[in-house]
């Protein structure tokens, strides 16, 4: 049914206008703010006219692109390939063989929903972004196209879209959605925003009175005001973070899909994306310190190609918040025999503390050496004592959390102090592995084992500072396990 070249849905003009508009505003905002801020006094009467004129001209210029895009874009399926031709001056014709298509995502922003349309994003294993991007199609066309591209009957696809919410693997409660927002804090963005206001405040209308007011206060009051405003900022950052998390993850659920796991979430823009389970190379479980204190973690799945990076706020995030006990519940659908809670973590050699201490001591001596010498001269050597102590402490902390584990199918490593991250790679997904020994490691009888999968995000397993004999045993075990799993690989990698 897509043999004849077809146009996009007219909603594409609105959608593209929004996209281009955001880009234009982002690009021109600093210049605009600078003009308004620097010429604020001199052109006070003309200012509304300048602002309105600027907005109208920008809107008209921005509208040209979407209209041309709508008029020039055609798509059709020809001899087992999707062809998308676009461009008015520079014409482009992209051909994507159906067999190469890894994933087809439907996305519906609030504008799509108002205009009864859906965007179709087509991905192959090649790039980091979606290779085919159709801004808006009617919902029926979008479903039909998705079915045609994935080469399955359309009725099935429509059924899948409107299927009752029966087979959810994991659902986030509203409380958990808020918790995910509360455990992050976006205060840094707010501070950056405030500084950017001062940056453009050429006439110092904001800065000068503030400095004056601070100067008039007593030192104690100034410190109190400073501390209170910082506290206020943190609270605002927290609220912003909660609001962002709530709009993004509202109604988060993971469902089973014929091509993998389907993630559905979003309050304003609704995301429906598929994690292609067959291409999962490694699974990561991260526990930032606040998450850990409350018994939660985040889950990521790294694939050989990529799936839509904008999915769940960060690259390859499968779930923004999971209770520690439920990791395997999701993990089992990503990798077979995934038993995170049952992993027996082995320690590395305690000599790692010595290596850490020496390494960081050397590093900090180089960084702080000159300033300290400049300031304290020969007394600077006394600073070595607290520095050595701090480095030793950080080494002990590192040793406390680092570890590795394996079952007959999986290899896992864990590291980090404030953000503990475990990387899990199945033996049948290992591409190559190495044993590395630096000069200091050779003196201490240690070795590092590195195991690499084909994930494009590049999260390898690094098991640092194993005793040399243990490293050799582990190496043999990895080699044997790879051979044992030779016949069981699923995705041809």
């Amino acid at each position, binding site marked *: 049914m897509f043999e004849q070249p077809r146009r996009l849905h007219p909603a594409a003009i609105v959608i593209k206008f929004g996209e281009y508009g955001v880009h234009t505003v982002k690009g021109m905002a600093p210049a605009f703010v600078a003009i308004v801020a620097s010429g604020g006094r001199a052109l006070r009467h003309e200012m509304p006219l300048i602002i309105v004129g600027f907005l109208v001209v920008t809107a008209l210029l921005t509208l040209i692109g979407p209209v041309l895009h709508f008029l020039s874009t055609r798509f059709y399926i020809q001899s087992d390939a999707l062809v998308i031709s676009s461009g008015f001056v520079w014409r482009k014709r992209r051909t994507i063989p159906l067999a190469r298509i890894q994933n087809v995502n439907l996305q519906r922003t609030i504008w799509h929903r108002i205009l009864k349309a859906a965007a179709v994003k087509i991905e192959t294993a090649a790039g980091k972004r979606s290779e085919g991007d159709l801004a808006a199609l009617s919902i029926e066309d979008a479903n039909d196209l998705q079915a045609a591209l994935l080469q399955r009957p359309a009725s099935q696809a429509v059924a899948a879209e409107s299927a009752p919410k029966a087979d959810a693997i994991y659902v986030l409660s509203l409380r958990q959605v808020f918790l995910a927002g509360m455990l992050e804090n976006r205060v840094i963005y707010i501070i950056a925003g405030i500084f950017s206001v001062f940056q453009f405040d050429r006439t110092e209308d904001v800065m000068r009175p503030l400095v004056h007011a601070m100067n008039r206060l007593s030192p104690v009051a100034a410190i109190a005001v400073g501390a209170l405003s910082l506290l206020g900022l943190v609270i605002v950052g927290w609220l912003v973070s909660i609001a962002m998390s709530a709009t993004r993850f509202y109604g988060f659920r993971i469902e089973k899909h014929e091509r993998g796991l389907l993630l559905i979430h979003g309050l304003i823009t609704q995301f429906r994306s598929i994690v292609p389970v067959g291409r999962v190379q490694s699974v990561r479980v991260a526990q930032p310190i606040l998450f850990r204190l409350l018994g939660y973690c985040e889950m990521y799945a790294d694939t*050989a190609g990529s799936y839509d990076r904008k999915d769940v706020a960060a690259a390859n995030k499968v779930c923004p918040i999971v209770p520690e006990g439920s990791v395997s519940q999701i993990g089992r659908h990503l990798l077979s025999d995934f038993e995170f809670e049952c992993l027996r973590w082995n320690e590395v050699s305690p000599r790692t503390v010595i290596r850490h201490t020496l390494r960081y001591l050397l590093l900090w001596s180089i960084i702080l050496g000159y300033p300290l010498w400049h300031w304290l001269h020969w007394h600077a050597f006394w600073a070595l004592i607290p520095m050595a102590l701090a480095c030793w402490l950080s080494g002990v902390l590192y040793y406390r959390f680092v570890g590795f584990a394996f079952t007959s199918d999986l290899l896992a490593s864990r590291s980090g102090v404030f953000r503990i991250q475990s990387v899990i790679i199945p033996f049948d997904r290992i591409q190559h592995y190495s044993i590395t020994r630096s000069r200091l490691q050779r003196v201490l009888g240690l070795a590092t084992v590195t195991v*690499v*999968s084909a994930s494009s995000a590049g999260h390898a397993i690094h098991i640092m500072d194993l005793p040399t004999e243990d490293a050799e045993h582990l190496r043999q075990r990895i080699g044997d396990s790879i051979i044992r799993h030779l016949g069981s690989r699923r995705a041809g990698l």
Partner: protein
Amino acid sequence: MQAPTLRRTTDGPKGIHPAIRKVWLFSNTLSFLIIAVITSLMEFGFLTGVGAPWRVPIFMPVLWIGCGIASAALVKRQWERWSYEVTDREVILTWGVWNQVQRFVPRDRIQHVDITSGPLARKFGLSHVHLYVAGAHSAVGAIPGLTHDEAEDLRNMLVESQAEHV
């Protein structure tokens, strides 16, 4: 039974051709010289800019020529450390003087093999063999200093193993 003309493994670790030392020596010298000249010019520019009484650059030439001599002294050790071995199930590459690395690439994970040869290596009749696996943007292993015959031999060995494992 395997065919007598086509070997599947290398029968133990093999070293690389000694002529590679000359290639490394020459290319190291050249790159350190280029860095020395560029950084010396920068030093000259800096000294002129701050109006120093002494404008002839000393620090950068001494630093980089020193580094060049140190790297030249290590070339022999570097050559001694490099070895490769093709076993029944994996390719084992060993290299490194300061950081000693032993890399294992399972044979059936190898996606493709490149043989390259720069102008300098070509002059000494040498080639490099690069091994590629899925997901990596660059070669996971580059075996330097093989004669053209050795490189062809190794390529055939690895490509043949591909055909068997598919």
